């Protein structure tokens, strides 16, 4: 579904990504872990072109997307949902409006259809009573669940998660991970940058370790955590587990 070929990304003089070649299949749940500054968020943000790669190719459903025009980039982004560390809900809009804004403005749904979809999604994330609340009235965990619902409203084929639980109070991490697990069980293709090793073990179909701008090791979660081979990964796991 997503093919990445020799992807690099420089910020000014710093080489953040140093040539990544990856393939992500439909239905896969890829969890990316690694120390901060390893380029894992940048890699994720390149997939939906929130960052423009310096070189290399990204193919989405066989189509090269790194040299598209803005209009076509927007088309690609409609098919990839993204969830951010800091939720980025729209504070001036009600929860329901947060969810319906994009599908309605992008003419994917009529307003009443979008409203119905929003209520379905709110049921799904367990917050149907918050439809008319505003983001400021929600807890962090609730905000992130709404952010996930907002991304799902566009019926994306892939969901990208950029450290979705890193900004949450510990007691709220569970509810968000639970929702992500549900999503995974429903067959969603997911790429998740996270520090939640439990989630990686339980949900991932493949775990990737990134450091210094490259993928140093990847494996099924079982092998990945039981038999890490790369010394950097061994060191990293010894610190976080």
């Amino acid at each position, binding site marked *: 579904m997503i093919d990445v070929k020799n992807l690099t990304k420089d910020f000014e003089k710093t080489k953040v990504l140093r040539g990544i070649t990856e393939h992500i299949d439909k239905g896969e749940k890829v969890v990316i872990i690694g120390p901060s500054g390893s380029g894992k968020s940048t890699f994720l943000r390149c997939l939906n072109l929130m960052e423009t790669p310096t070189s290399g190719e990204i193919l989405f459903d066989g189509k090269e997307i790194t040299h598209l025009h803005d209009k076509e980039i927007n088309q690609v982004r409609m098919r990839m949902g993204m969830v951010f560390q800091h939720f*980025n809900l729209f504070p001036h809009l009600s929860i329901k409006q947060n969810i319906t804004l994009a599908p309605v403005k992008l003419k994917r749904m009529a307003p009443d259809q979008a409203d119905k979809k929003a209520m379905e999604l709110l049921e799904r994330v367990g917050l149907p009573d918050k439809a008319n609340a505003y983001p400021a009235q929600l807890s962090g965990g609730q905000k992130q669940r709404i952010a996930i619902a907002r991304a799902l409203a566009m019926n994306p084929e892939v969901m990208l998660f950029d450290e979705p639980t890193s900004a949450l109070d510990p007691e709220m991490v569970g509810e968000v991970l639970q929702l992500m697990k549900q999503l995974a069980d429903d067959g969603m293709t997911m790429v998740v940058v996270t520090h939640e090793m439990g989630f990686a073990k339980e949900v991932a179909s493949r775990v990737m370790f990134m450091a210094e701008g490259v993928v140093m090791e990847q494996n099924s979660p079982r092998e990945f955590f039981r038999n890490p081979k790369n010394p950097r990964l061994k060191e990293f796991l010894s610190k976080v587990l």
Partner: protein
Amino acid sequence: MNFAESFRQNFIEADRWRYLWDGLCTTLLITALAVCLGMILGFLVAIIRSTYLRTHKLLIPDLICRLYLTVIRGTPVVVQLLIIYFVIFASVPISKTFVAVIAFGINSGAYVAEIVRGGIMSIDVGQLEAGRSLGLNYTQTMAYIIMPQAFKNVLPALANEAIVLLKETSVAGYIAIADLTKGGDIIRSQTFSAFLPLLAVAAIYLVMVVVLTRLVGRLERRLAANDRR
């Protein structure tokens, strides 16, 4: 001459109060239209500048905007008014009030632009990213997500700019517009007493500014209460 007599002479005799009343109307008309022009210009410039700063697009329009801001904010409004009247519109038969609206509108636009740009830049870049990640284009994200928040944040500052403009129009007399200030001055030149006419002018400005400032304060409190919901 006692106060009553002086009052009668300055305001009642020969219907001199009409200089103040007509002047006030002119002042309010110029201010209202200049505020509108300033807002339109200011928002336009602010959007161009913040677009350039965030996306590095619109380089040429941004350069023009920067030139505009530097020139307008770097020169006195009276000089701008005189140049627009005596140089730019020198050979065009045109209403002076219209010239004043243009001059004060262009002047105010520069200050509005910087206020609004500050408002736009103060919105977390995550808002832009969230909008774009959903597939909205830059214009849609600005229109539905960034600008509504920025506008709310800068509303009190914009209202204050309008109040400042109300006072600044008092130099309209330089191109012989009979605004409120000029009205008081005309009375002074007729009655040869400066005290009452000029005090009356000052009092009228003060009342307007105090009332408008109160309204802005109320607006600010309401917006703040809105944020806590």
